[in-house]
C-alpha cells in the first residue's frame, strides 16, 4: 500500500471516528466542549515541529516554523487551560471547593 493510499485510509477512519465520538452533549457542556475541541485542533504543532526539523540551516524557514509553532502552541496551551478553568467550576450542590 502506498503512503498516499495509507494516508487516505487514515483520513477516512479518523473522520468516521470523529463523527461517532460526539453524541448527545448536555447543554451545560456546549461551551467547554467547543473550547476543548478547539485546543485539540492545535495539533498542527506536529507539522510546525517537522517543518523546523526539515528547515536545516534555512533561516527564513526556521523563522516561519517557529512562528507557526508559536501560534499552534498558543492555541493548544491556552485552549486546554481555559477549558480546565471552566470545567473546574462545575460542581454539585454540597461539593466543597
Amino acid at each position, binding site marked *: 500500500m502506498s503512503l498516499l493510499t495509507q*494516508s487516505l485510509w*487514515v*483520513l477516512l*477512519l*479518523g*473522520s468516521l471516528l*470523529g*463523527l461517532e*465520538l*460526539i453524541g*448527545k*452533549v*448536555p*447543554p451545560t*457542556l456546549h*461551551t*467547554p*466542549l*467547543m*473550547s*476543548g*475541541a478547539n*485546543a*485539540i*485542533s*492545535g*495539533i*498542527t504543532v*506536529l*507539522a*510546525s*515541529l*517537522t*517543518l*523546523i*526539523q526539515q*528547515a536545516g540551516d534555512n533561516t527564513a524557514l526556521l523563522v*516561519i*516554523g*517557529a512562528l*507557526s*509553532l*508559536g501560534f*499552534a*502552541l*498558543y*492555541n493548544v*496551551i*491556552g*485552549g*486546554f*487551560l*481555559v477549558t*480546565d478553568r471552566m*470545567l473546574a467550576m*462545575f*460542581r*454539585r*450542590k*454540597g461539593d466543597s471547593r
Partner: protein
Amino acid sequence: MTFSMDAFAAAIDLAAVLLLALGIKGLSKVSSARGANALAALAMGLAVVGLLIEIRPDPIAWLWIAAGSAAGGLAGLATARRVPMTAMPETVALFNGCGGMASLLVAMGVALFDTGEADIVALVSIAVSVFVGAITFSGSIVAMAKLQGWLDTPGWTQSRLRHGVNISLAVLCLVSAVLLPGDPSGLPLWLLMGGSTLLGIGVTLPIGGADMPVVISLLNSYSGVAAAAAGFVVGSQLLIVAGAMVGAAGLILTQVMCTAMNRSLVSVLFGGALGASAGAVGGGGSEAGYTRITSCSAEECAMALEQAERVVFVPGYGLAVAQAQHSLRELAKLLEGHGVEVSYAIHPVAGRMPGHMNVLLAEADVPYEQLLEMDLVNPEFPRTDVVIVLGANDVVNPQAKNDPTSPLYGMPVLEVDQARQVFVVKRSLGAGYAGINNALFEMPQTAMVFGDAKAVLNGLLSELRSMGVGKTKVAA
C-alpha cells in the same frame, strides 16, 4: 537501536490517538469532562514527544523550537489565566484563528522553500492547507472582533451583492489552486492566500453577533481540516488522524449548536444577520410600541419574593454584561435560607454562546443541578409563584408560541407567562436581538423593574434583609 526507537515512537503515536479519542468522548459528559480534557492534553504532549523522538531535531532546530514554544506557550498561559469568563466566545475565536494561522504558515513554508519531493499530493495538500488555514484565521479574527464589539455588521454586507463577491473570491481561490503546481512558490500561492483570507472575511462579516457561536464552531471544524491537510503536507499520519477527528467532531458540534439555537447552518451562513432581516420584515422594535407597561420598585419585588414558595430566575445576556452572577447567587442563597425553593431556567442560548450561562453561573458557585434546561423547567412554570427575568428578552417572548406573524414564531422559549407573577429586570424597553416587541412585558401579571441587573439585585438583597429575611431561619 534505531529500529526499537522508531517502534517506540510508533507506539507512543498510537497511544496518543487512543487517548485523544477518549478525551473527545469524555468531554461530552459532565462527570468525566475535566479528566477528559486533561487526557486530551496528555495525548497532545505524548504526540509531541513521540514526534521529537522520531525526528531527532539538531541543536539549531532545538533552539528555534524552544523560542517558538516559549513565546506561544507563555502567551497561551497568560491569556487562559487572565481572560474573564464573560469573554469566552471571543477567546475561543482567537485561539482558533491562531490554529488556522499555524497551518497556513506550515503550508506557506513548504511551498516557498521546497523542502523535498514536491509531488502532486504535496501540492494539493498545500493548496488545501493554505485555503482552509487562511479562511480559519481571517474568519476567526473577524468573529472575535465582532464579539468584542470592535466590528459591527455593516449594512452593505446585507445586500445580495455579497454572494457575488464571495463567489468571485472562491473562483479566484480555485483557479489559483489549479495553477499552483505549475509554479509552487509564485503568484498563484499569494493569490490563493489573499483570496482565501478575503473570503474568510467576506463570509463572516455579514453574519450577526448572535450567530457567531455557530460560526466559531464551524471554523473550529475547519481548523481540524487544516491540520489534517498539513499532515498530508509534512507526511504525518498522526496529524491526519487527529485533524480528521477534530474536523468531523467539530461538524457534529456545529450541528448541535445550530439545534440549540434553533437555526439551520445554511441560514446562519447565507441568511445574513438575524436582527437586520427581522427589522426589515417586521419593522417593529421601538420603545413607542409598548402601551400597557407596569413598572415597580425593588421594594415591591422584594415583598413578592418574601411571600413566594417557589421562585425561578431566568438569567440572560444582560446579567452577564452587568457581571451580576454573584449578586444573583447571593440573593438565591438568602431566599433558600428563608425556605423558598429556588431554581434557574436556562435557555439553550442564554449568555453569549450555547452553554455560556452555565459557565457563568458555575463561576458564581451555583450548583449545576439547580440549572434547569428548558424542557424540564417549562412544565414547572404554572406552579411557580415568582419568576424574575434578568436581562433576557427574546427567549421569554410568548409570541414565539402564539403569534404566527412574529419573526420569532417557532423558536422554543421559556414559558414564563405561565407563572403567577413575573418581574422583568431590564435597563430600558429596548428590543432584543430579534428587534421586536415582547408581549410578555404587557401582560397583567408582569411588572418591569428598570435598572442595571446588578444594582437591582443588590437593591433586592438590602430590601429583603431590612425585612428581616435571612436573620432568623424560618421553618416554613
